[in-house]
């Protein structure tokens, strides 16, 4: 059996099992002329290994939990960013800018949201960049191409998204001519941009998660990442609180604006605000739970035997 197919079959097994038996099992599969029954037998063996773990490497299991927690923080933060972009989109209109200038609480809450978002981004980079470098270094030292290719997905997704936006602004809009802001064509194109952005974001985060999951990275980096992740959680909490204050202050100071149709796609401002608050609250909960689990796993990490 060819090396590539053998590797694919080995990947069916849990990580701890692969760490222990992967190399020798792959050697056996490469050596043997595999029938369809053999492939089915490997699949059943893998299912058995998942259902009844045969390798109980405590360190490996704890490491997997810590990695899962760190990746869950990344996903929670991505959800938070999507909500934040929604808030930024809603408040870019002049009415909201003036409200922020006019009222102290609206302005202060808005700037707190911005500062919190920047802090969260910096913390994500602080915890994430060393993990990405370690994953790349390990993959390159093993001569693997899959991990570097997976890390190419985010810049490629971004390029594809920017390309799509340029296509719309440079080709599509000049061709179709001017349209009312909320005409059905404009709404459809706007929704397509939102869809393209969400697709690019999901694909990028999924690719990074996959790359990190497929590489052997030491516990030290995941343990360290939990601290910037704590900062991410705190920043998200602050942003969420500021967002709530922003909405309440806007309702008190500019009730007409809060009760008007200043939301995204001319929806009710209050409903758009509420949807953003709910999405941010969900993402904050995801991050908080992931952190609790991550620190719990880190506390149970057995000492290295060496």
């Amino acid at each position, binding site marked *: 059996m060819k090396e590539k197919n053998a590797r694919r079959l080995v990947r069916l097994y849990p990580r701890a099992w692969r760490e222990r038996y992967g190399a020798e099992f792959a050697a*056996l599969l490469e050596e043997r002329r*595999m029938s369809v029954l053999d492939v089915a037998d490997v699949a059943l063996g893998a299912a058995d290994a998942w259902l009844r773990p045969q390798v109980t490497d405590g360190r490996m299991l704890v490491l997997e939990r810590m990695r899962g927690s760190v990746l869950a923080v990344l996903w929670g933060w991505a959800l938070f960013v999507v909500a934040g972009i929604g808030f930024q989109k809603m408040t870019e209109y002049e009415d909201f800018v003036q409200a922020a200038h006019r009222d102290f609480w609206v302005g202060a809450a808005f700037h707190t949201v911005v500062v919190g978002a920047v802090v969260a981004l910096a913390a994500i980079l602080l915890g994430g960049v060393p993990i990405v470098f370690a994953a790349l270094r390990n993959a390159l030292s093993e001569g693997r191409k899959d991990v570097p290719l997976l890390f190419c997905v985010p810049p490629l997704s971004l390029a594809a998204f920017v390309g799509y936006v340029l296509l719309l602004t440079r080709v599509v809009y000049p061709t179709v001519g001017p349209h009312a802001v909320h005409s059905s064509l404009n709404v459809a194109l706007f929704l397509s941009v939102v869809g393209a952005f969400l697709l690019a974001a999901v694909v990028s985060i999924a690719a990074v998660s996959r790359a990190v999951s497929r590489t052997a990275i030491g516990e030290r980096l995941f343990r360290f990442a939990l601290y910037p992740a704590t900062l991410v959680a705190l920043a998200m909490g602050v942003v969420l609180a500021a967002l709530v204050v922003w909405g309440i202050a806007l309702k008190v100071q500019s009730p007409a604006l809060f009760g008007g149709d200043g939301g995204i796609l001319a929806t009710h401002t209050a409903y758009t605000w509420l949807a953003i608050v709910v999405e941010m609250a969900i993402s904050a909960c995801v991050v908080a739970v992931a952190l609790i689990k991550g620190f719990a796993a880190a506390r149970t990490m057995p000492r290295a035997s060496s």
Partner: protein
Amino acid sequence: MANKGNFDIGRFSDPSLFVLASLADGEKHGYAMMADIETMSGVRLGPGTLYGAIARLERRGMIEVVPTEDRRKPYRLTAAGASALQEQLLSLRNVVQTGLKRLATA
């Protein structure tokens, strides 16, 4: 029940017995075990079944890997594995002898 407790190695109990029997005459790696088991018993173990048995036996301390630089890791019986194999084979011999005796007198 003591025998069962010692030899309770799950769904792959027959493959585990084959692996222990195969290693009884010396260390072997996975491919050699498969060939040996096929010659010995006519049973062609699949790779997934074989390594399921190997993993369980190693976890229970009945076999151990022989240190080597080669990707193909040889395994050997431990004292506990040899004892468990003997126990199981003696038990099977009783079953075989009794069964044959009963068939002869039936």
